[in-house]
C-alpha cells in the first residue's frame, strides 16, 4: 500500500491537465474586476488614501454571486471526475490492495486539490490587485466610507487580515466538504457527471437561499442547517453573523464526517466495472 504513490498519480492525472488552467484566467479576471471596484471607491470617497489589496479580496469573495456562481461551480467542475475509477484506476486499486486505503487516498486528494485550487485562484487573483494596491493590516479610508466595498466589515469583523482569513478558511472547508459530497454522489450513481450535477444543484439552492437576504443564519433553527450560512463567512450585503462561528465549524465537521463514513461504507460495497468514459 503506497498512499504517497497514489496521491502522486492522482496529482499527475487529475491536476496536471488543461482544465486546471481555468482558475488562472478566472482569478485574473476577478482580480482585475475587484481592483477596478477598489479604484473607483478610492477615487470617489477618499482620493488621497491608499486602497488595500485585502479589501479587494473581501469584496470579491464576500460577494455571493462570485462565490456561488463562479468559484464554487468551477471547483465542482474541476473535481467532478475523481470517481468512479476508470480501467487504469482499477489497476491502481488492485495494487493498493484495500478499498479503505483507496477511499482514504481519494479523501486526501480532495483535500490536496482544495488547497491547490485556493492557491492557484488566489495567486491569480492577487496578481492584478497587487499591481495597484499593497497588502495592509488596516482598513483604508475608502473602505471605511464606501458601502460598495465593505458594507460594515471594517466595524464588525476586526482587521482586514482577520476578515481575509475568516472568509478563506470557511471557503476552503466548504469546498473540501462539497468536493467529498460530489465523490459520494458519483460513487452512488456510478457516473462521473452525476456528482457535478448534484454539486451544481446544491450551489444553486444555496444561492437562492441568500437571495432572501437578512442577517446570515438569522431565521430560526432551520438556518443552522443551511449551507449558505456556513460557506460564506458573511455575504457583503449582510455583514453580520447571527450564527456563532462555532456552529459553522460543527456544521462542516459533521458534513465531512458523514461523507467520510459514507464513503467508507460505499467503497466496501461498490463494484468496479468498466467506466466507459475515456481516461485522461
Amino acid at each position, binding site marked *: 500500500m503506497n498512499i504517497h504513490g497514489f496521491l502522486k498519480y492522482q496529482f499527475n492525472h487529475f491536476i496536471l491537465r488543461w482544465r486546471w488552467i481555468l482558475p488562472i484566467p478566472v482569478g485574473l479576471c476577478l482580480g482585475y474586476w475587484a481592483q477596478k471596484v477598489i479604484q473607483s471607491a478610492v477615487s470617489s470617497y477618499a482620493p488621497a488614501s491608499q486602497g488595500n489589496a485585502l479589501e479587494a479580496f473581501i469584496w470579491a469573495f464576500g460577494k455571493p454571486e462570485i462565490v456561488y456562481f463562479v468559484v464554487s461551480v468551477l471547483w465542482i467542475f474541476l473535481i467532478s471526475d475523481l470517481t468512479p475509477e476508470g480501467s487504469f484506476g482499477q489497476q491502481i486499486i488492485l*495494487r493498493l490492495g484495500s478499498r479503505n486505503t483507496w477511499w482514504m487516498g481519494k479523501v486526501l486528494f480532495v483535500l490536496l486539490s482544495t488547497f491547490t485550487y485556493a492557491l492557484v485562484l488566489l495567486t491569480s487573483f492577487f496578481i492584478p490587485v497587487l499591481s495597484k494596491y499593497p497588502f495592509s493590516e488596516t482598513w483604508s479610508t475608502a473602505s471605511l466610507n464606501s458601502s460598495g466595498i465593505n458594507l460594515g466589515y471594517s466595524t464588525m469583523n476586526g482587521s482586514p487580515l482577520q476578515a481575509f482569513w475568516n472568509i478563506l478558511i470557511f471557503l476552503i472547508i466548504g469546498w473540501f466538504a462539497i468536493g467529498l459530497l460530489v465523490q459520494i454522489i458519483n460513487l452512488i450513481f456510478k457516473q462521473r457527471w452525476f456528482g457535478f450535477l448534484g454539486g451544481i444543484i446544491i450551489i444553486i439552492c444555496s444561492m437562492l437561499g441568500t437571495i432572501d437576504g437578512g442577517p446570515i443564519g438569522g431565521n430560526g433553527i432551520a438556518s443552522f442547517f443551511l449551507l449558505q450560512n456556513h460557506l460564506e463567512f458573511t455575504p457583503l450585503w449582510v455583514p453580520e453573523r447571527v450564527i456563532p462561528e462555532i456552529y459553522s465549524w460543527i456544521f462542516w465537521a459533521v458534513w465531512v464526517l458523514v461523507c467520510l463514513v459514507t464513503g467508507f461504507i460505499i467503497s466496501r460495497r461498490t463494484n468496479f466495472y468498466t467506466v466507459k468514459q475515456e481516461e*485522461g
Partner: protein
Amino acid sequence: MGQSQNAVELIAIKKNFNKLTIFEDVNLQIPTASITGVSGPNGAGKSMLLRIICGLVKPTEGQVIVFGKRIGIDRDFPARTGALIDTPGFLPGYSAAKNLQILADIGEKIDRSRIEEVLNIVGLDIKNQQPLHTYSVGMRKRLGIAQAILEEPDLLLLDEPTDSIDQAGWKNVYEYLIQLKEKGCTILLTSNNLDEITILCDQAYILKNKKLTAAG
C-alpha cells in the same frame, strides 16, 4: 483458513447484474501453478468472472477463495495478482514505460530494468517515448499484458490476452505464460480461440447458459 492446494476456489458463485442473472452456481478449483482456460459466447460473463475473482466486483452469492483467503472477508483483493480485464486502461498522454512506472510506484518496488524486461516480453520498446494515444489497439493490448505481469504475480487473470495481437506476438506471450507457470504462477485466461486453449491450458471450462462446465 488453512493453505489450500488450489490457488483459486469458487464456491456456488452467482452474479446478478441489472436484475438479470449472468451466471449461477459456478464452482471452480484452479490448482496452483496451472493454466486454466474459460471460453464461452460473448456476454456469457467471462470478464465478470475475472472481476469477481480479483475482488473488483462482489458476487451476489457464493464465496471466492484465493490462496486460502476469502475475498471480501479476509482481504479486499487477492495478494500478488495481475489482471487484464476488458479493455486495458492507460494514461494516454504518457509513454508505455511511464504508464508502467506509475503502477510500479503504487505497488511493489519495481526497477527500470524490470519495466524494460516486461516491455520486451510483450514486444514493445522502452525507447519508444510516443504517448499511448498514438498506439494501435494491438499495442495497447500488449501493454495491458505488461501491466498484468509487471510485478511477477502469483495469480494472473487474462481476459482474451491475444485478441487483437498479431500471430508473431502470440508466440512471445505463450512462451512467457508457460515460463510463468513453470515458476509457480497460476493463470486463468478467457479466450474464444480454441487453439490457444488447447496449446496453453491444463484444464478448460465453458461458460454458457449461466453455467460453468468442464470442457470435453
